[in-house]
């Protein structure tokens, strides 16, 4: 029984961390219409940043700053934001393809750099020497994982509430205005490029937070954690859940992560032994089909965006007479 519960806690922690990432992406894509093709780079920046800043000294790679945990996590988030700022500055004035390609490029380059630069982050061996916060007091057991889950859940709720308020605020209306009609927003004296950059950086900082928590959870991060696979998974979560809807984003994260875990388990359990090598390929085909299928048959997702009219125009003349 305790085994099942502890597995559920483990699953829910991962899903909740991914939900935070999907929320960050939702701000970029769902609310602002920015295509981030390199989600994993910003997620990875958060993870690497947190672990390097908060870790103990290691031979051969950067580290040993030993910052207290919250500062390390904030540092990781700042790193993700900084990367987004540079990429956004260069691409957000141009047509949307450029952002898609440049962010995709960032992800390739980030993974490549982490894999090769041993002096920076341990190369293919990954970043070691990170102590999970409060481990001395709580140990490594179930209690720790449960408390960690609660912290992640609280952060997820905090991010959710923050984004809900942001989206309902004048700034949120501005984001949607720019998404729907850039020229109209411009004619009202707004600067689409600057607003987009703000939204892009904010979303990436949230992605960085998710990455930082992910790194903390495993107390380890390596180039294997920043493969493009994760970008696809996070994308699928948002599309299935419903772009533009924060609740949909969280729902999609749990649903897709559940489906991914379940399909991996089923394939490893029931697929013939000679097909085991190909379970990864099969899972990728499934996730690709889910993405394409949703776009073809239900592009608004399972929980569509609720469009609000913030100010109704005058009542039509015909009705006034009644």
């Amino acid at each position, binding site marked *: 029984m305790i085994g099942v519960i502890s597995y559920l806690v483990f699953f829910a922690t991962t899903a909740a961390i991914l939900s935070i990432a999907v929320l960050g992406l939702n701000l970029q*894509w769902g609310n602002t*219409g920015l*295509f981030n*093709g390199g989600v994993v780079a910003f997620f990875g920046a958060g993870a690497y940043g947190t672990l390097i800043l908060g870790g103990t000294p290691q031979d051969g790679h950067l580290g040993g700053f030993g910052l207290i945990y919250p500062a390390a996590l904030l540092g990781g988030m700042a790193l993700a934001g900084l990367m987004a700022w540079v990429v956004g500055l*260069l*691409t957000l*004035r*141009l*047509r*949307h*393809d*450029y952002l*898609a*390609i*440049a962010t*995709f*490029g*960032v992800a*390739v*380059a980030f993974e*490549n*750099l982490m*894999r*090769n630069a041993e002096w920076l982050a341990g190369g293919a061996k990954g970043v070691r020497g990170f102590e999970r916060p409060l481990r001395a007091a709580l140990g490594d057991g179930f209690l720790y994982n449960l408390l960690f889950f609660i912290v992640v859940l609280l952060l997820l709720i905090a991010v959710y509430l923050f984004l809900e308020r942001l989206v309902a605020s004048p700034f949120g209306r501005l984001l949607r205005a720019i998404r729907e009609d850039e020229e109209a927003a411009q004619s009202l004296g707004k600067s689409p490029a600057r607003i987009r950059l703000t939204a892009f950086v904010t979303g990436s900082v949230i992605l960085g937070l998710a990455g930082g928590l992910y790194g903390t959870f495993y107390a380890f991060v390596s180039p294997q954690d920043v493969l*493009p696979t994760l970008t*696809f998974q996070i*994308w699928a979560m948002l*599309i299935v859940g419903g772009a533009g809807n924060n609740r949909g984003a969280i729902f999609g994260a749990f649903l897709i992560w559940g489906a991914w875990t379940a399909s991996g388990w089923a394939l490893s359990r029931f697929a013939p032994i000679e097909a085991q*090598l*190909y379970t990864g*390929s*099969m899972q*990728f*085909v499934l*996730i*690709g*089909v*889910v*993405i*394409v299928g949703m*776009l*073809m048959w239900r*592009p608004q997702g399972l929980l569509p965006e609720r469009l609000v009219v913030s100010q109704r125009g005058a009542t039509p003349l015909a009705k006034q007479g009644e």
Partner: protein
Amino acid sequence: MIQNLIDGILTGSYLSLGAIGLTLVMHILRFANFSHAELLSLGAYCALVFDALVTALVPGLAAKLGPLSLTWALILATLISMVLTGLSAALIDRLVFKRVREKGQELSMVFASFGMALVIRNVIGLIFGLSPELYSKDIAFATILSRDPLILVKPDQVFVLVAALLLMLILHLILSRTTFGYALRAVAENPSLAQVNGVNLARTIMAVWLIGGGLAAVAGVFYGLSHQIIPVMGRDLVLPIFAATIVGGIGSVYGAVLGGFIVGIAGNLALVILPSGYTPSVPFLLILVVLLIRPHGLFGEARA
């Protein structure tokens, strides 16, 4: 250094071929097609199948052409693959992209192409296995052009370069001299106006996919000749090809050609100063440099 330059030009020849199709699609359908590189692997595997088939049916065609590791069978297989890959590209558009296009916005297309890339790449992996394949198991000996500095060129590489340039010339003639070429350019400039003037939009889009797919198939075969054929080759090629279109300016065919060569040469020259592990990052650095100094590329124009 000179060796790197030569290798770079040869890499550039297949990158250019891949980039031409991509830039045309990005120009006319206005979306960054992340599944274009998968057309290269589709073409490469298609040629592999027909090479084996032709060799089995007509063993006489399996003889090598002079110093090349290329056979008549492979040339024939490549031509078949061009047609089939072009048709597959048109079919994928008809089945997937067209529907997404009619349903959603341009950006949904980018997504759909991400999904399609995953599907195509992994289905190829499931069918052909994950281990690399080669067109010819024989070792291709390089010809020594000079001993000091040591410069080696494989005959296959020269063939690839010449064939690529020839294909680009043919495409240039089609685009600049035929009614079809004018129609294509008209659609890219202004789809509605082109339709008013009697250009069939659906047929033009189909033609773009056929050309793009056909060139991608050749590029895939050439990549296979120079390296090896693996299911994940699309993953490694997608960024260099995108970089080529951005360097050249999205929508410019000549820009894509030049961009392909620039990306190829830059990647190989980078080996002089960077360890080879960093090669995959070079296209990204090029993209950053271009966006910094000339955001619309060498031949591109600003367009919303």
